[in-house]
Structures are given as C-alpha cells and as structure tokens.
C-alpha cells in the first residue's frame, strides 16, 4: 500500500493539493494575491496575530463552541452516540464568522479600508458585514438577484449592519455569479479593497487561509472529544457547500487514521435527476473561480445550474482540498437530498430543541443513517455549522404557511 501523505503539509508552495487548487486568475489579480500570500505567510505564525485572532474568537464570537451529546436523538436512532459541534451558537449564527474575523484582521494589517464579499444564503454576507461594522470598514456584498429574493431577512440584516447589498443579475443570478461579480469588483478596486471569500474556494492562498481560520472547529472538537468521550471520535460528518465548515472540522483529524470522515453534499431533487449541487458525487474536475476542482459542468465546459433547498450549498464547485481528499480516499463524499435534509431539520428541532440550518441538516441526515449502522460505544461528531432561524421562512413556505 502506498504511504499516506502528511495532510498537514498541503497545499504546496504554489497552492496545489495534488492536481487541484492553484491560482487561475487574470493577470491583474496576481500581484494582489502575491501580496496577500506574503502577508499571510508573515502573520500566520506571528504570536500577536494569533493572540488577536484567539481573543476575538473568545470574546466576540463566544468560543469555544460546545460539543453537545444529542443523547435523546442518539437513543432514538439507535446506534452510535451523535455529538454536535455547536457552531450554531457562534455570534451571527454560523461557522462563517470564524473566517471573517481572520480575514478582517488581515485586511486591517494590509491597510485596506474597504471589504467586499460574495454570499449565497447571506450567512457569509452577514458575517462580513458584522466584522466590517466592528472595524469601521466600508462593506459591499454581492448577492445573486435570485438569492436576494430567497433570503430577504439576511439582506435586511446586512443593511442594518451598514453594508450595501448589490444584487447580481448576470448568469444564473446565484452564488457563483455573485462570486464572478466580486472578482470583477476586486480587479477594478484592487488598490484599496480586500476580498473576503466565504469558503475554501477561490485562488491560492484563499483555500489555505480560510481553512486555517476554520480549523479552530476541529481543534476544539478533538480536545473536547478526548475530554468528554475519553477518545477520538470514530467518524466526523459535515455538510459541503464550498467546504469550509467541513475542512475546518476534518483537517485537525486528517492524520488520525482511525477517524472516518464523511462530507455531505446537497443532492437537491436527487443525484439521478441532475438537479442537485453535488460536484464531488456527480461532477468532474475543471477550473472555475481561480482553482482546479470538481465542478458541475456540461460537455462543453460550461458551468451548469445547481439546485438545493439550502442556498448555502447551492454552488457548482467545491474547495480544491476536498477534491484531493476524495481522490486519495481519505474522506468519503456522500449526498443527502432536500427531503432528507428537511426531515432531519424537523427531527432535531423536535427531539433536541435545536433548530439547525438547512445546510447543516444535510450532515444530520447522513449522520442519522451512519449512526444506525454503528454501535453505542462508538462516537460521531457532526458539525452543526449554523442555526436554522434564517430558514424559517423557507420551511414555512414549504409547509404552505404565509405570514
């Protein structure tokens, strides 16, 4: 058998995870990315930078987030113990803020007075608007016109926080188009603007730095597991949109051979229908948004539209590190469809009194299946990446309820 790679040694110096990742952007951005890379290299092990980041995570975000044993639900499922990593309890309600705190610190160090972001569900937009408000940075958020309609509450939240939300009407009017538009803005305003990307995608060094900021999730979960369960978990489960909450949980465990990992993509109406958002399950490698990764594309290399009940998973690509972890077989990528996610959403709410985000509900749906095949002396950690308040209107709509 071939030797297992040392997962902590990636990406390589040019930003690649095996054949994936890299820096596929127009020349105008190469200088800015070099500058960001140099700044990040300098700061990432700098004690003061780390201390500032940790301080904000503790006192502003409210970390560490608890690792909660969902005892009643585990009993009902009948199998492994299901533990929930409670990112839903973070300030602003999701894991996204771990990353925006980190990138906003970088923006401050680089002296950029303006930040931009792309957002789908609006969670990353809210998390960006939040840190921008706190640091007094000008903030503009690009959001597909379709998503602006679907996520009215978060749009208003961003406005209250002082950010400007710019609806994107090009292409499919969703997250990928918002990312295109944010890139166009950055090319134009590269001198004074920091682009806060919301997931582990984009050109190098973004997949690396977003991962590093999100790894707080896995580092805490590892320590908490040892303390609370007395051993490392047998399996980790997280939903995968761009893949930031998943890599944040997985990465600190990658070199622990005994820990199985499952990334759960959105199967939408079902993988067979073609109406889904599961590039790792049903796509193929290509190049989009600055990196090489698995994509949903047609035979001509055009990116195709995605479908999911959860706006935060509605993305045709995925972080490049996940593509590599799939190919080397370290992580299993599976999918849960809209119905499975909705039923997990309802179940956790009723059984544990915790209302999960629809994104996280995909992870819960798979964890339920997995737990049932395991024994009560085994442990699963599920990343509860966000809370479901933002999704109440979506679920009400499905239930035929109008306010």
């Amino acid at each position, binding site marked *: 058998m071939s030797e297992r790679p040392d997962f902590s040694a990636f990406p390589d110096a*040019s930003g690649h995870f095996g054949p994936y990742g*890299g*820096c*596929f*952007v*127009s*020349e*105008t*951005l*190469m*200088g*800015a990315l070099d500058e960001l890379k140099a700044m990040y290299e300098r700061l990432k092990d700098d004690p003061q930078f780390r201390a500032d980041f940790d301080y904000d995570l503790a006192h502003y975000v409210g970390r560490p987030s608890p690792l909660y044993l969902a005892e009643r639900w585990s009993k009902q499922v009948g199998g492994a113990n299901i533990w929930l990593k409670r990112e839903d309890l973070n300030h602003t309600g999701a894991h996204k803020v771990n990353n925006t705190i980190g990138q906003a610190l970088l923006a401050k160090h680089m002296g950029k007075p303006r930040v931009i972001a792309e957002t789908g569900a609006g969670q990353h937009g809210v998390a960006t608007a939040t840190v921008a408000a706190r640091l007094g940075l000008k903030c503009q958020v690009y959001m597909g016109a379709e998503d602006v309609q679907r996520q009215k509450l978060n749009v208003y939240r961003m406005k209250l926080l002082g950010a400007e939300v710019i609806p994107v009407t*090009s*292409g499919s009017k969703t997250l*990928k*188009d918002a990312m*295109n538009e944010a*890139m*166009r803005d950055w*090319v*134009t*305003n*590269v*001198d004074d603007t920091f682009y806060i990307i919301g997931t582990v995608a984009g050109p190098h060094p973004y997949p690396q730095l977003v991962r590093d900021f999100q790894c707080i999730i896995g580092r805490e979960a590892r320590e908490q597991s040892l303390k609370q369960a007395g051993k490392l978990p047998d399996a980790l489960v997280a939903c995968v949109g761009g893949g930031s909450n998943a890599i944040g949980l997985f990465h600190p465990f990658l070199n622990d051979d005994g820990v199985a990992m499952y990334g759960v993509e959105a199967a939408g109406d079902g993988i067979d229908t073609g109406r889904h958002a599961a590039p790792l399950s049903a796509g193929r*490698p*290509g*190049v*989009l*948004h*600055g990196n*090489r990764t698995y*994509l949903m*594309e047609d*035979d*001509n*290399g*055009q*990116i*195709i539209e995605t479908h999911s009940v959860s706006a935060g998973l509605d993305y045709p690509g995925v972080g490049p590190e996940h593509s590599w972890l799939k190919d080397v077989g370290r992580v299993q990528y599976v999918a849960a469809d809209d119905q499975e996610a909705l039923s997990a959403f309802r179940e956790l709410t009723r059984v544990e009194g915790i209302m999960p985000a629809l994104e996280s509900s995909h992870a819960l749906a798979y964890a339920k299946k997995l737990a049932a095949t395991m024994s009560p002396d085994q442990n699963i950690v599920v990343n509860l990446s966000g809370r479901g308040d933002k999704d109440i209107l979506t679920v009400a709509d499905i239930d035929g309820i109008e306010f």
Partner: protein
Amino acid sequence: MRRIERCFERLASENRKALIPFVTAGDPQKEVTVPLMHDMVKAGADIIELGVPFSDPMADGPVIQLACERALAHNTSTRDILDMVKAFRQTDSETPVVLMGYLNPVEVMGYEAFARAAADAGVDGVLLVDLPPEEALEVKPVMDANGLDIIFLVAPTTSDARIKLIGEAGSGYLYYVSLKGVTGSAALNVDEVASRVETIRNLAKLPIGVGFGIKDAESAQAVSRVADGVVVGSALVNQIDKFQKEPAAISGAIGDILSAMRTAMDT
C-alpha cells in the same frame, strides 16, 4: 514562420500597427461569425481575436458577459468555433486567428485534443484569461508542439519580474491590459499606457498589443503611436448587441468603426 510573427514583421516593415478586433463567436447567431470575420479583414483588421463564450466570464464587463449569454443561448461550443475558423480559412489563409476565453472549455476537451483540433482548424494562438504562466506549464508545450502561440496578459499591476517571466513564457504577442478593471471599462489614460509599454519593451521581446478601453478612432490612434497592436472589443460587441435583431446590419456597423480606426492609425 508562424502566421502571427509574420503578420507583425510585415506590419513593422510597412511601419504600421496591428488592428486587432475582438468579437464573441456565435454572437448573436452562429451564421454571423464567419462572414463578419471576412468583413473585419476587409475593413482593416490584421489579426482576429475570436471570443470563446463561457458561462462565468469573470474578467469581462457587462457587454461581453451579454455576448457570452447570447452565444450560449444557442449552445455555441468550442467545436462549433473551430468549425468557424476552418470555414474562414477556406478563403483566408493569411489573417491570424486567436481564440480568447477561459481555461475550462479547453480543459474539458483535454489539452492535446484541443491543441490538435485547433491547429487543424487553422487557429494560430490562444489567450486564456484565467491562465497565468505559472499554471500553464503543462499546456504550453502541448500548444507549442502544435504550432499554436500562447498569448499572456500583462496588467498595470504586473511587477517587472513578472513581466520578464511572462515575456519568456508567451509567444506571438503580449497583451497589455491598459487598466485595472474588466473589459469595457472607462477610457484608458494614454500617457500611462505609453510609459508602461516602454517598461514592457525593456523587459520582453514580444510585440505588444494593448486592449481594454479603446473605443474609437482617436483612442486607437493614440495607442497605435506607442504599441504594436490595438485591440478593440466591447466597442464592437456593443454593435452586435444593438443590431442583434437585424444581424445583416452588424458587419456594416463594425466595419465603419474598424475603417475609421484603420485610417486614423495609418495617418
């Protein structure tokens, strides 16, 4: 000698500069493109940049985004575009044709298959906006082996060290993006362009084409005084947008713009 090199040599010997129009292939209809290419040559074009439409044109402004959407609305594929070049070559064996677009449609075909098909169709070069030289190590020898030039961009933000690297990696010509922004952005600053082009000349040997922000005869003339080639895109694609319902009028409208540029550049 390759067609692009020959073109720049001939122009240099005549003390003229290259006029390089860009249009998106298949916009607004597939049938429009080949006759339009011939008409652009008649109006004074020296090299044609043919846009390969992409669903996610990250480096393009609204004008070319819409051109991509129009071309993709009836599924203009890379193979269709190679067929167009092949048809163009039946009566024009001299005007260089450069395919300009994004990497993914090439990547999906496979580098080898793409390069062979492109060379066979009579394509001379490719310019892939999201492919900097660092990521082109694998594709470059494949293009080379098939006689295709690979044209790289230089931006206002490109460091001297990178200009050197790009100059060594590329062939055919260098494409200087005259401003920080997407295609179709505001007007360029001629003095700034002149000083940057001089810097590039000192660091790289290839001919220099300048694009982004060239809209009319006046800006084309100004840029032709300092660069080796003048690329005009959005100003032409605007005409396609305007006449998308009466495609017969497109060639005339674009031809008028190019003729005026040609005259201004040659005087």
